[in-house]
């Protein structure tokens, strides 16, 4: 079985002594990220300018640009940090499951739980995903690829354990599972659905998708 191995332990190298300058730089970065997170949540990606972010962080736009090349890099950094927080939990949820439905509901449930708590930021990130540059698209695909492997691994295990037919198209079924998972965020955004409601719907949708694939 091929699990994506991620090293979630912190690095064991001897701690690097940060100079005062480096510490100050790091603090600046963190202040910018915090300000950006709140503004992106409030106004969306387009609505928040570097100038606004600098103002909220209490620094000059020049100081922001010293840490980040542009707004899209800043935004991606926030999303990647969030992604790293939930990815380890998703692996755990998937591994602890006994059936394919449990595995998928487990790993998507982690994501729903995390994102529904900060829906405005999720909305901004979905909005951006439809119109971003090709370079930004390539970078973002790296994160999504790991998630796809995780879904595909859960399906492969289900095949190995005789829950699913041997001849199913794993990639296609993984994609379809992903599609319903993401599409359901619309219910959270427009209809105020809770995590439980999203999971109940997802569970029904997965039954539709896997009905013909069960062994």
């Amino acid at each position, binding site marked *: 079985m091929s699990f994506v191995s991620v090293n979630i332990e912190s690095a064991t190298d001897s701690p690097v002594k940060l100079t005062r300058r480096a510490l100050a730089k790091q603090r600046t970065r963190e202040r910018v990220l915090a300000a950006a997170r709140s503004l992106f949540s409030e106004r969306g990606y387009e609505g928040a300018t570097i100038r606004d972010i600098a103002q909220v962080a209490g620094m000059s736009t020049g100081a922001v640009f010293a840490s980040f090349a542009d707004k899209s890099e800043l935004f991606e950094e926030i999303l990647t940090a969030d992604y790293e927080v939930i990815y380890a939990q998703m692996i755990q949820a998937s591994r602890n499951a006994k059936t394919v439905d449990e595995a998928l509901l487990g790993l998507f449930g982690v994501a729903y739980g995390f994102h529904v708590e900060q829906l405005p930021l999720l909305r901004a990130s979905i909005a951006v995903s439809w119109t971003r540059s090709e370079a930004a698209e390539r970078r973002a695909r790296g994160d999504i690829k790991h998630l796809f492997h995780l879904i595909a691994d859960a399906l492969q295990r289900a095949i190995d354990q005789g829950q699913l037919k041997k001849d199913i198209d794993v990639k*296609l079924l993984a994609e379809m599972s992903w599609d319903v998972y*993401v599409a359901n965020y619309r219910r959270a955004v427009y209809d105020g659905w809770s995590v439980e409601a999203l999971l109940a719907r997802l569970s029904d949708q997965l039954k539709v998708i896997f009905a013909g694939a069960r062994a």
Partner: protein
Amino acid sequence: MGVRDDQKAATRERVLEAARDLFNEVGYDETTIRAIAERAGVSVGSVFTTFASKAEVLSHVMNHRLAELYAELDRVAPLLRGGTADKLCSIFAIHYEFETRRVKLFLAHIAASYNPNNDPGVTPYGRNPRLSQMLLDVLEEGVRKGEVRGDLDLRLIIDTLKASYAWNYRMAAAAGGNMPAAEMSAVMDKQIAVIAEGWKPR
């Protein structure tokens, strides 16, 4: 309608057409209300007396396009042939063909519907009752003909199909808008086949 109303309607029409073309050619974020007014040959002020924001303009552009799409669906609906899955494939293929004519406009529409600061005048993407009804008609016919099991929640099947339909546009987004409709339809055909495998009577 008085002359004034006629004029107002004509301005509206011109603004929507200019906005549609600019959103598709230049991009939604890159297009300003000023640029729309310029292309439409009207004042910036008159755009704002008709629409509250750029997001509302986009929303109206998209509603406007539905008349064209529905005309196409009406024309094709009686001609649909084959089994239940084949008919669904055709319906989605027509949608991909239609939306890829102005794919950047369509992607902007999806993106804008997730924007956190949407105005109340904006209709969210994905509320297309006509598409859902067409799919339901086909599935119900499938049940009558014994191709689809009778004990299934057809609306749930539609919900699942529409999720795949919508997120296949990610292919177009990832390709910077250069994605032939036929390639998206081909993927959709496979997805429909997966679900069809599950609705077969056993």
